[in-house]
């Protein structure tokens, strides 16, 4: 009787350990070398294929293979509410970001936090495939619009403050921001 109980306890502990090892919450923070550091918003505007105000309405995270050592990517569907520069062929664009969330695993770049669904953003984008874009300079080309006011990512998320210091924007009304930089 006792022997049976010991076996049950050991078995349960073994199963719990395996489940824990496989499903414990993992957060992987990456560090990257950004291709380009923008001097100011004017330079970023010049280099962007598309500048829009849009809202992330949905997202899908994936990795290229089942290998757990491959990176996670996320494609966001962004509804373009206002096109400031460039031209879009469809009402929604696909925005590609490094990192994402799959099950209990989260991966993101230290100074480029994952985009949250429902966030309205002012985005400076580069096209790499038809209707597919990435943000210029990671956190540099992404501004959050909250209650009609524009904030650079570094203003809302401390680890990005050094990266976005040249693009510092804090609570400027969207209309004023646009009239300053897009005359």
């Amino acid at each position, binding site marked *: 009787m006792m022997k049976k109980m010991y076996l049950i306890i050991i078995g349960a502990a073994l199963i719990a350990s395996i489940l*824990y*090892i496989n499903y*414990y919450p*993992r957060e*992987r*923070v*990456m*560090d*990257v*070398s*950004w*291709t*380009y*550091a*923008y*001097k100011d918003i004017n*330079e970023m505007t010049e280099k962007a294929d598309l500048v829009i105000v849009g809202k992330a309405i949905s997202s899908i995270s994936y990795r290229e293979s089942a290998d757990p*050592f491959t*990176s996670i990517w996320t494609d966001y569907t962004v509804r373009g509410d206002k096109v400031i520069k460039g031209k879009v062929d469809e009402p929604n664009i696909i925005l*590609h970001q*490094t990192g994402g969330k799959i099950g209990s695993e989260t*991966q993101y*770049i*230290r*100074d480029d936090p994952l985009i949250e669904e429902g966030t309205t953003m002012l985005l400076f984008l*580069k096209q*790499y*495939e038809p209707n*597919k874009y*990435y*943000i*210029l*300079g*990671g956190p540099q*080309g992404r501004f959050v619009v909250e209650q009609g006011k524009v904030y650079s990512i570094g203003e809302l998320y401390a680890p990005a403050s*050094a*990266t976005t*210091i*040249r693009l510092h924007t804090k609570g400027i009304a969207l209309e004023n921001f646009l009239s300053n930089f897009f005359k």
Partner: protein
Amino acid sequence: MSLKKIPSIIALFILSLTCFSTIAVNAYVLLQGWTFSTSTIIVLDNTGYSETPTAVNNWNSYVLDARFSLTGLPFSHHIGMVRVNNPGVGWDGATTPYFDIWGHLYKMKIEINHATCGTYASWVRRSVIAHELGHGFSLGDQYFVPVLMNGATWGFNSRCGTFGIFTPQADDRAGVNAAY
């Protein structure tokens, strides 16, 4: 004020300047928990870039408290380097650490993005690789300053575009010695 006090005031002023400049020199950033338990970090290179051994040698040419050792064996390495080809990102190199369930670092992966690095001159590619290896030593990014750990390759006050850096600078080396 007595004239006798002037030399003391000047001396104090110079001393304070010296102190501040010392702080400014040691500007390296260390990433918490990114230090391996060994000071010989074994690197497996699968990028296919001829610049990787040179970048490793650039670090190893200095007498530091930690060093890299290149291996050809696909096991028992600390850092695995791979080539990726992703045109949909704004980075040319990335480093990801892997921790065990107790929070100990056991592996790092360095990805070199061929979509961007493939278009670079050899010395720039070497700069990206050496920069990512710097993360392997637990050094964090800095911006707009003339160090290898400058987090931008091109653009305003950038590692290659402005400063032309592809080898570890004094501040980078001080960071490694502080970490190990």
